[in-house]
């Protein structure tokens, strides 16, 4: 088992480095030019300024040399300096990541806590109003554009009803807690500032629901399908025939067997949360990684783009590894292979 995990980890590291190479090549072969994006037309017309800019950011080096510099930095945990903010990328990430982590974790929890029971219930009570409602919710969740859902939620619950606070992480009147983790809920609770805690919590509700919507839809859908499949198996019929109560059959027999596809999908959905965060954070003025990613892309900020890519790829590979490891727990047969 340990050998398996170790070999998987090594493969994962190789994958992440190769992934960075892919992005490096794509980003450098497309004709976009950070010089133009950063300096503007006027300065870009001056060859001396352009040459100085290129030299300053190492853009005058050959491609392979630039990649080598990037790799050397990466080995030391250094992502280089952002062309747009003129700060180390790592510092930027440290500033923007907590907002997204807080939002993403909450959204993911929300979609699990609602999606799993809803999917199970829909399968058990198949073709009833519960099933139809669950299918409708999941269909809207996967079909509605995140950015539009964010607008509709804001327009209804902030604009019309005034039940929820507006965009941002905190009200203008609230005092941000001393940053320790950068997670507002955690930091304010730690310093005992409950007013700020509830303010931050209220600001999280709408964006978390919006970000959770598509994940929630996918999880409900997959859980329902997997449960239907499991409930139709012979062992479920046997369990029912020997007189087990319905609850025991569903939770004890069908559910464990339906978990495999759900775990796979949940892992994939988690890894894709950042994509949804780009839209959600734009509408909710959320100072997180999603906004940062967007700004880096528009400014063609190579170091920042590469850093985000490496992190996204690493997260994806790691989540996949965890998913595969959870198979061993959920389905002991997979270990024997």
């Amino acid at each position, binding site marked *: 088992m340990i050998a398996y995990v170790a070999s998987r980890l090594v493969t994962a590291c190789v994958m992440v480095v190769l992934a960075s190479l892919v992005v490096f090549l794509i980003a450098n072969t497309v004709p976009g030019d950070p010089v133009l994006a950063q300096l503007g037309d006027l300065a870009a017309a001056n060859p001396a300024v352009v040459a100085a800019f290129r030299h300053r950011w190492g853009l005058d080096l050959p491609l392979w040399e630039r990649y080598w510099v990037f790799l050397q930095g990466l080995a030391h945990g250094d992502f280089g300096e952002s062309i747009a903010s003129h700060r180390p990328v790592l510092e930027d990430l440290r500033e923007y990541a907590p907002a997204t982590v807080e939002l993403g974790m909450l959204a993911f929890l929300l979609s699990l806590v609602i999606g799993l029971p809803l999917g199970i219930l829909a399968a058990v009570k198949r073709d009833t109003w519960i099933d139809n409602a669950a299918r409708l919710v999941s269909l809207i969740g996967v079909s509605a554009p995140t950015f539009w859902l964010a607008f509709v939620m804001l327009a209804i619950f902030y604009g019309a009803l005034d039940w929820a606070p507006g965009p941002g992480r905190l009200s203008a009147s609230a005092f941000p807690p001393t940053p320790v983790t950068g997670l507002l809920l955690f930091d304010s609770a730690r310093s005992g500032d409950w007013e700020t805690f509830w303010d931050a919590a209220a600001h999280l509700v709408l964006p978390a629901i919006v970000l959770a919507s598509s994940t929630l839809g996918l999880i409900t859908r997959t859980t329902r399908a997997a449960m239907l499949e499991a409930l139709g198996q012979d062992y479920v019929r046997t369990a029912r025939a020997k007189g087990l109560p319905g609850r025991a059959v569903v939770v004890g027999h069908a559910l464990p067997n339906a978990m495999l596809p759900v775990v796979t999908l949940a892992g994939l959905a988690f890894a894709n949360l950042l994509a949804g965060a780009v839209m959600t954070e734009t509408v909710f003025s959320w100072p997180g990684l999603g906004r940062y990613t967007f700004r880096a892309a528009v400014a*063609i900020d190579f170091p920042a783009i590469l850093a985000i890519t490496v992190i*996204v*790829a690493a997260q*994806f590979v790691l989540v996949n590894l965890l998913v595969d490891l959870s198979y061993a727990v959920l389905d002991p047969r997979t270990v024997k292979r």
Partner: protein
Amino acid sequence: MSETLILVQEAPGRRFARRYGIAVAGGGLILAWLLLAVLAPWVAPYDPNFVDVAGRLRPPSSAHWLGTDALGRDVLSRVIWGARVSMLVGFGVVLLGAAFGTLLGATAAYARGWAEEALMRVTDLVFCFPPIILAMAIAAALGIGTLNTMIAMLVVWWPKFARLARSLVISQRALEYVEAAVTSGAGPGRVLLRQILPNAAGPLIVLVTLDLGNAILVFAGLSFLGLGVTPPAAEWGAMVAEGRELVQQWWVATFPGLAILSVVMGFNFLGDGLRDWLDPRAESR
């Protein structure tokens, strides 16, 4: 198990509705949008780019069914014209991506050995990025414009088709009809394109259908971020972006969003229906 029972109890019309109702509803929805897209110049009541500043931000009325936007342009006409862009990009990206991915995956599966290993590792590499993030970077680098955004999406769109095609071809090539074709002297290209792919088409068609909605969503998202169409082109994602500050004038952003929702729902219905129809196991569900 209860199949015979249902067959006896249900009237034929009901059975058809239960089995194909969703697919037909989805197909109808898609067909309606396709017609609107094609007939936009004749169906749209106004020129989508006709600016009427005096009549700006009017709520829905009999003259403007869906109201007017911040420049006084008719929202209904812009929604109808927007269908053109979305459908074009959706079909363009998915069909080209599917063609490339399928060819690559099928070739990999048929070639086996190091070629398969190399092709699939490259696929895995591209697959491990959320499409929208990579597409965002590429679209930004290429510059704003519908064609550039399509290119950016295409770069990241093919891996899922490569994976599916590979697994389909692997399961097909063990079957006897392939062996028969090889024995009777058909070359690898012919076996792959004329024998294996037609037999493996079902799941690919389902994925294409479901993916069309997905591509329209991603393109609308990129457009919303300002990386899609060049203004003043009427496009749904860009329209939502233009109206997103206008909470009081809710109609500006709400209707284009509803248009996206309905199209994506249509493709999801159609894809689910096709899958149930093609997958005999799902019949009893």
